């Protein structure tokens, strides 16, 4: 049973790390602010989500698991809002405003 859990952890965390890598490449390579933001939000949602999902089988108590999920939700919230704010600022003032 614990082997299955460990395999699940390794797969999910690796997939999450891959999203972080892809998001970072996107941040560096994409041409303008909006597409860069697009790449970043993928990292927040899917990358961190997969890592949290992978860590859940390794938690010792339910409380700890709930804390992990709350961290993911809060990061998602802040990521989504900050992205909206930056995108709004770009639309109003242009990319260097």
């Amino acid at each position: 049973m614990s082997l299955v859990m460990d395999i699940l952890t390794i797969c999910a965390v690796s997939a999450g790390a891959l999203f972080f890598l892809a998001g970072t490449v996107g941040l560096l390579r994409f041409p303008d602010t909006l597409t860069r933001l697009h790449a970043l939000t993928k990292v927040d949602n899917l990358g961190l989500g997969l890592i949290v999902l992978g860590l859940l089988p390794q938690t010792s108590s339910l409380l700890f698991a709930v804390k992990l999920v709350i961290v993911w939700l809060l990061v998602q919230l802040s990521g989504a809002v900050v992205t909206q704010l930056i995108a709004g600022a770009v639309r109003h003032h242009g990319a260097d405003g």
Partner: protein
Amino acid sequence: MSIASVFDIALVALILTIGASAILVRTAFAAVVMFVVYGLLLSMAWVRLHAVDVALTEAAIGGGMTGLLLLGAVARSRSVNVDSVRVGYPLRLAAGALCALVVAGLAIPILHPPEAIPTLAPTVMENLPPSGLGNPVAGVLFVFRALDTLLEKVVLLLALLGVWSLAPDHAWGGTPGLQVYARPDPTLIFLAQLLPPVGIVFGIYMCWVGAKGPGGAFQGGTVLAAMWLLVIVAGLQRAPAIGRLWLRGLLVTGPVLFLVIGLAGWVFADAFLAYPAGYAKPLIVAVEAALTLSIAVALGMLAAGPPVRAQQQ
């Protein structure tokens, strides 16, 4: 080499790079952004050193609050175009030499550590149980070095007085001019309605848990201040006029309660800032709760800046 030490070396390299770029970038705004990133990375370093209390303080104060104050300073100095101001070479040389002196002073004990590193940690752990506290950091702050903690909070009030004294005469007692957005932004309003309930519970929890685990008045107070500022910045609530009695009352509640309990220690426990046997923990928790409120209000008002408008009747 283990994965942990690879991580540590990468972290140190990253901290040095970010620190260097905070100095080297051309614009003040970019330097502040680097400074905030630097603070967050530094708090990760503290976690690696198992100093979670310091990590929380660094993330909350060093990264978050100081970053916000610096951003406010950059925004206020836009009118004088701070990036075009050139500092003369003598001043730069003096700043560089002083920084080098500090680094050298820090480097000497690290590169040549004494045979037996002086530590008070065993003494602290030995004398902690009578206080009823589980967190040695809280023990040092509120039992062994309570005077330092008390004075630290008074310094915070003095800093706020310093900011307030920048007010023009006609605005004295009026409302601070914290205004980031010209018109209310629906996304920000959404966040300011959604996040504070979570943040306020979290801030109170951090203060409460400080007696037995990492956390405490400063960290909890910073989270509360952040929630308050979020509501103000989103335009849901105006910053209060600094002449308000409730505001001034909240500001001094923590230090005054601390001082009263400290003075009572002379009567009931034979020394200033000593706690009567058996009452240490409840008294410390009461002081921490009051301090959390005072710190939250003080930090919030520090970030809100000096008053710019006369109080509206």
